[in-house]
């Protein structure tokens, strides 16, 4: 998902770290098992902290990078209504990134350090944002499917054991529903439009379907055990479970549009009550995650440029604040 790389390798256990206090660990696990929340200053196992730092910041980075593919169509939205909607959605994604950085910072790492991890390429973000947005229909598909997949993953995260993350996810989930519905509305409009518009909708679905399925991360067979995450009540469903839920929910929506999914093996299984689907091209997934997708370099360059070009603004704001502070201090002395 937005944190799909989490399964690649479990955070390494620090060999030099003192053994975790068994009594503290038991108390921590009891709180988690009771579905109580862990709060920032509570004792937590170092590996729990590292897992969350990694997962929440990856999630934040994804929200931030995720603004780029949609930003690509802002100036070319087909109407003022669509433009206002797209702008509001992109602003929400910026907000989601900021809620999440705010939650990640409570784990004792600074905003600047998290940014640095993204800008230097050390931290990952969701593979889906490394695909280009070639037509307006991509705005429909992204809202419908990318945000739809995000919702599938994020709803269980609202019950995550770490309080600040759970609270951020609740805010985010409230806003995601608008994102998915506006995307689907674009798809409805296009698929009821001219043959050319319908073809554009179909073509966008064809390009995005498989990358969207990859958002849920590697299959359970391959994914490095998320045993710790499950025990800690960070992760509540496996990648394949979430992927299946998403497919089951999405197929009828696509049928309603009169579009076809680009998977000849897609068929409803009466025995299981679920949709069977074809094999995902995991080599593509690994390639994109490793930095070699269609837009990885472009996305990173844009993010680095935004950070660099904003430096003088941050510097000026700090200088202004400092000047005001000194002036008011001088005025206080003069008054005494």
């Amino acid at each position, binding site marked *: 998902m937005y944190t799909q790389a989490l399964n690649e390798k479990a955070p390494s256990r620090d060999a030099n770290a003192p053994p975790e206090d068994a009594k503290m660990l038991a108390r921590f696990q009891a709180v988690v098992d009771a579905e109580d929340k862990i*709060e920032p*200053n*509570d*004792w937590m196992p170092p590996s729990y902290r590292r897992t969350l730092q990694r997962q929440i910041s990856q999630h934040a980075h994804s929200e931030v990078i995720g603004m780029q593919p949609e930003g690509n169509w802002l100036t070319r939205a087909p109407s003022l209504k669509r433009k206002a909607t797209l702008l*509001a959605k992109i*602003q*929400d994604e910026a*907000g989601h990134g*900021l*809620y999440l950085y*705010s*939650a990640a*910072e409570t784990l004792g790492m*600074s*905003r*600047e350090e998290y940014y640095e991890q993204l800008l230097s390429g050390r931290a990952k973000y969701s593979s889906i944002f490394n695909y280009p947005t070639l037509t307006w229909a991509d705005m429909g598909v992204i809202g419908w499917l990318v945000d739809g997949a995000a919702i599938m993953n994020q709803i269980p995260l609202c019950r995550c054991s770490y309080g600040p993350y759970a*609270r*951020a996810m609740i*805010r985010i989930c409230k*806003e995601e529903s608008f994102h998915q519905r506006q995307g689907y509305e674009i798809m409805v409009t296009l698929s009821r439009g001219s043959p050319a518009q319908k073809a554009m909708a179909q073509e966008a679905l064809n390009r995005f379907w498989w990358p969207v399925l990859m958002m849920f991360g590697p299959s359970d067979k391959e994914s490095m055990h998320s045993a710790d995450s499950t025990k800690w009540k960070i992760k509540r469903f496996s990648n394949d479970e979430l992927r299946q839920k998403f497919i089951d929910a999405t197929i009828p929506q696509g049928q309603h549009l009169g579009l076809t999914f680009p998977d000849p093996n897609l068929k409803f299984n009466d025995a299981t009550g679920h949709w069977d689907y074809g094999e995902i091209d995991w080599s593509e997934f690994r390639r994109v995650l490793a930095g070699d997708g269609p837009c990885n370099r472009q996305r990173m360059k844009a993010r680095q440029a935004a950070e660099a070009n904003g*430096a003088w603004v*941050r*510097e000026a*704001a*700090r200088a*202004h*604040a400092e000047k*005001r502070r000194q002036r008011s201090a001088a005025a206080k002395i003069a008054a005494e």
Partner: protein
Amino acid sequence: MTETATPLWEVFIRSRSGLPHKHCGSVHAADATLALQAARDVYTRRGESVSLWVVPSAEIVASDPDDKGELFEPTGTKIYRHPTFYIVPDDVGHM
């Protein structure tokens, strides 16, 4: 070049008049004015707020979770602080 870190502020929102301000997250900003603007942009895009507070994070004094027992448990045994501890004869009626 390493930039100086931009200060962190905690954000509190009053969602409706009559309700108390409630913590909702944090923002980074150089000064109070910018912190208020950032808080408005980040946390109130859908009419979530009628009033905002921003407080420098470093200024918040919090109790230590390790002292939770010492600080808060003693009140658990003081059941005589609750009205239900006292028996009032039925025929007195509601009190």
